């Protein structure tokens, strides 16, 4: 039997990876690579929210992109109507998305299992419709532009390289926040709900309230991601937050592994860069995404990374002979920061 790794040890790999990512600009990547990386980073922030919801609490939401959209539209509208810029939009976007999450979550959570997933999907679509029909206020189907610069300490920071650093910073923040949640009593309670709701209730856990809370937390991450997205693409429209983006996010979280601390980073990077590596056009890459989602869900429900780790450990076990009980005890549990 192995002793579980200490909480701090589980944060280390993620921090190392983030530091490495932060050094990428010094290797002279192309603009396209950097753009892809920023885009991946923006998604990763949202993914940390989804992994609190799905990985820790076991609630699958197929409307996460809609919450990202709330953050993005808040940013754009605030800039346009209130002259409010990036740094104020970030918390406000997070809060508004959290409120939207509560609005969706409270009714949705009265409904069981698969009905719930359908509800989240439906709400996502509903939001898209509302945005499309919002006339001039929301820019309707064409969407909104965002003109504001991003300023850091008096200097413009929205060129690729500075913005990349900002995004990496938020990824780091998300990872740390996620880690803090996972290792707290709150995280344990969420896991209890994921593992056995009835039992959790019998121990005094208010399951309903915690589920809504998890939803709201996921909303905060999504909202921040939306603001980052809006200031990067400089133009947002409802289609960016409709069904495919939600499916895309679900895919990323599943491929990376919903319960691993590195999961969102792995999933975000893999899924964003795969078409580049394979030189696929947008249509081909979407077909690939769809197929991967199906494959991962059927074959590797713990995520691709966890699946690889398990495969690795199984291989190790068979190579080192049958006597290794330690490997046997670990063979069902990916090592590291998995919870």
């Amino acid at each position, binding site marked *: 039997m192995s002793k579980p790794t200490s909480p701090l040890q589980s944060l280390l790999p993620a921090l190392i990876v983030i530091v490495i990512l932060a050094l990428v600009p010094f290797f002279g990547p192309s603009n396209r690579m950097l753009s892809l990386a920023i885009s991946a980073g923006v998604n990763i922030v949202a993914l940390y929210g989804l992994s609190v919801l799905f990985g820790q609490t076991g609630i699958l939401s197929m409307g996460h992109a809609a919450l990202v959209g709330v953050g993005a539209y808040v940013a754009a509208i605030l800039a346009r109507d209130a002259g409010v810029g990036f740094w104020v939009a970030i918390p406000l976007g997070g809060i508004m998305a959290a409120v939207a999450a509560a609005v969706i979550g409270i009714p949705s959570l009265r409904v069981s299992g698969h009905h719930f997933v359908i509800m989240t999907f439906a709400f996502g679509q509903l939001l898209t419709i509302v945005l499309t029909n919002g006339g001039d206020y929301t820019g309707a189907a064409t969407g909104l532009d965002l003109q504001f610069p991003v300023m850091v300490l008096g200097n413009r920071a929205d060129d690729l390289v500075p913005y990349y650093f900002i995004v990496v910073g938020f990824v780091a923040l998300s990872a740390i926040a996620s880690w803090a949640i996972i290792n707290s009593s709150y995280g*344990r309670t969420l896991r209890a709900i994921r593992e056995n709701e009835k*039992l959790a*209730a*019998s*121990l*005094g856990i208010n399951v309903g309230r915690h589920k809504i809370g998890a939803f709201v937390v996921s909303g905060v991450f999504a909202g921040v991601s939306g603001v980052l997205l809006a200031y990067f693409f400089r133009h947002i429209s409802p289609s960016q937050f409709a069904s495919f983006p939600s499916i895309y996010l679900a895919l990323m979280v599943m491929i990376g592994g919903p319960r691993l601390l590195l999961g969102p980073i792995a999933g975000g990077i893999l899924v964003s860069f795969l078409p580049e590596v394979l030189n696929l056009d947008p249509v081909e890459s979407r077909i690939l995404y769809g197929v991967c989602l199906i494959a991962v869900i059927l074959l590797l429900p713990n995520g691709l990374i966890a699946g690889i780790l398990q495969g690795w450990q199984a291989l190790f076990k068979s190579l080192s002979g049958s006597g290794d009980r330690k490997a046997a005890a670990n063979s069902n549990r990916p090592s590291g920061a998995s919870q």
Partner: protein
Amino acid sequence: MNAILDIKGLRKQFGGVAALAGVDLSIEEGEILGIVGPNGSGKTTLFNVVTGVYKPTEGSVSWRGRDITNLAAHEISGAGIGYTFQQAMAFPGLPVMENVRIACEHARKSSRPYPWTTPQSLLDFVGLSALADERAGILPFGSLRLLGIALALATRPSLILLDEPAAGLNDRETATLVGLVKQFPEHGISVCVIDHDMKLMQMLCKRLVVLDFGSKIADGPTQAVLNDPKVLEVYLGGAL
């Protein structure tokens, strides 16, 4: 003696079927009460109504004078009633230690001295310390039952309801269970056990209640109840 749980006129209809047809029952402080009855007699329904899974069609449940009839499941625990389930329940993907830790983190605040306030003390009490880092999902059945007891104890209950705690256990495991449960009253925990196993009931309970078709047909000292001709008829149409 003090009645801490008082059930009056409890009725539960499911459509046309009365799973509970007006049951009056009370649990005295410090006792170990047994509830038995053939399948379908309403034992588990009774359990489910008290623990907040169902709302009764009629009747009330009071706990230390307070009406808890309509409380939700998580509030029952907060009120001081702990319970274990018929199917041994745990958090399968989490290590045993974490299972217990979660339960401890949600224990109700209680000022009375309580011997099992830490996860380790609970694991030691039920004898699962050696398995602390194993995932609960791979535990053998007997150990799972013990884990369930540990979890219920962690919440610092004043009353524990055990629904068929010995189902699936062999004689040795049952004896271990009895040994544990017998210690509860000394620590201020009253017990109510629902089971089929008459030997278990004889070992554990001083008082026995028998249900049949949702009604109480006997209530008294264990041996007397087991010799009651009405009870014998209901069970096997003959001697036990």
